[in-house]
């Protein structure tokens, strides 16, 4: 299972544009994508805008993005870049 731990840099947090961009990329991935807060809470579906909004990640908070399978490292890098973009 591949993971990326990312600090969300966008002023609005992982909402609105960053959330929509993240989910749009995640939906293109063939495997499951999950997003969780580190050390607490269950992972949520990274392909669901509702789930990502519900996670309510604010600027400066950290998330763990997980995926498994062929190509997952590349996808995780891209998703980490989206989630970490200012």
């Amino acid at each position, binding site marked *: 299972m591949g993971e990326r731990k990312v600090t969300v840099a966008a002023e609005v947090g992982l909402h609105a544009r960053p959330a929509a961009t993240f989910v749009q990329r995640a939906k293109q991935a063939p495997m499951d994508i999950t997003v969780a807060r580190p050390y607490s809470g269950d992972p949520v579906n990274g392909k669901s805008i*509702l789930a990502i*909004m519900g996670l309510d990640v604010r600027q400066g908070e950290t998330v763990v993005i997980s995926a498994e399978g062929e190509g997952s490292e590349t996808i995780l890098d891209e998703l980490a870049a989206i989630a970490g973009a200012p």
Partner: protein
Amino acid sequence: MTTVLAPVEGAAVGLAAVPDPVFSAGMVGPGTAIDPLRGPGKAVAPIAGKIMKLHPHAYVIVGDDGKGVLVHLGIDTVQLQGEGFKLLAAEGDRVSAGQPVVAWDPAAIEAGGRSPVCPVVALDALAGAVTGVAEGAVHVGDELFRWE
């Protein structure tokens, strides 16, 4: 099937008219947008359910079937940090369709240089799942679209 009601009074103009590509390109989901009547008003819950997220400028109601509807009050209004918005309910509250959630004034948003247009979006829905989208004048509580 979920019937989504107009959360504000105004003119249903479609998501393509929203001056933010996240909404106009349908990245958040299908639905429509309302160009609201200028003047103080109360934005209501478009469906019955639980208030999953409540920001002054936006809220998400999730129905018992798990469908979530986003109402965004104006564009780039997160920058206002709540100024000009008054919460009439709390996150986690159960609301009925048509119950007031946020009091605001679209005219004040516009006077501040922002668009007061309100996207109403079926989150995670496929484009074809939204039908019967209203066009033109809508009153609060009118049927805005259906989510199959």
